[in-house]
């Protein structure tokens, strides 16, 4: 398949990723069934990961790696977990993308990687204090479209 990201875009990503602080590990979950965007998403993610030594990716299948998908609460394909990595230790912050991150949402992928790499949410202190004390599960789903 031809490259999805052109040289200009790759250069821009490399400039932005020059400021990355810590390793980020992406877990891609695809499916062989009814997933028209899985191949493109996987390729896109692999091309992004190739732009920085601090990034890595493992590719999983929703069906054959079902236990892992369940563990990480991934129920859609393509699904992407954006996690922190220290040595071999992967720390899940609960950050997920479902569907292809193209168009505007490509920026969200890049920003999510930067946030997780910096290990800093950027939220104000009052918000952080409240969230630290949360004792009930919260699922935030942000619906977006690529255009």
């Amino acid at each position, binding site marked *: 398949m031809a490259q999805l990201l052109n040289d200009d875009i790759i250069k821009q990503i490399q400039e932005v990723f020059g400021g990355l602080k810590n390793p980020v590990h992406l877990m891609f979950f695809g499916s062989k069934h009814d997933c028209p965007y899985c191949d493109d998403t996987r390729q896109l993610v692999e091309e992004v990961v190739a732009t920085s030594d601090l990034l890595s990716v493992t590719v999983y299948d929703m069906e054959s790696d079902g236990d892992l998908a369940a563990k990480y609460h991934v129920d859609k394909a393509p699904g992407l977990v954006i996690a922190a990595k220290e040595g071999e230790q992967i720390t899940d912050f609960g950050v997920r993308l479902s*569907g292809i991150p193209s168009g505007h949402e490509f920026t969200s992928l890049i920003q999510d990687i930067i946030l997780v790499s910096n290990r800093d949410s950027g939220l104000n202190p009052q918000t952080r204090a409240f969230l630290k004390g949360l004792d009930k599960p*919260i*699922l*935030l789903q*942000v*619906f*977006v*479209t690529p255009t």
Partner: protein
Amino acid sequence: MAMESPMIQAEMVEATEFPELSMRHNVSGVPQTTINDGKAHVVGAVPEQNLLAEIQRLVAK
């Protein structure tokens, strides 16, 4: 927000690829933020304070 608490999962969903879920949550404009599978919805870009207030309202119930 997910980064600040292990209790929070934040998922960006490409609405056109998952039409059943989008229809179930009546997604008509994007972005739309849905909390806990429909317990609360916020349409449009949502400021940090407002989203925090929605979460606080839900957990207080």
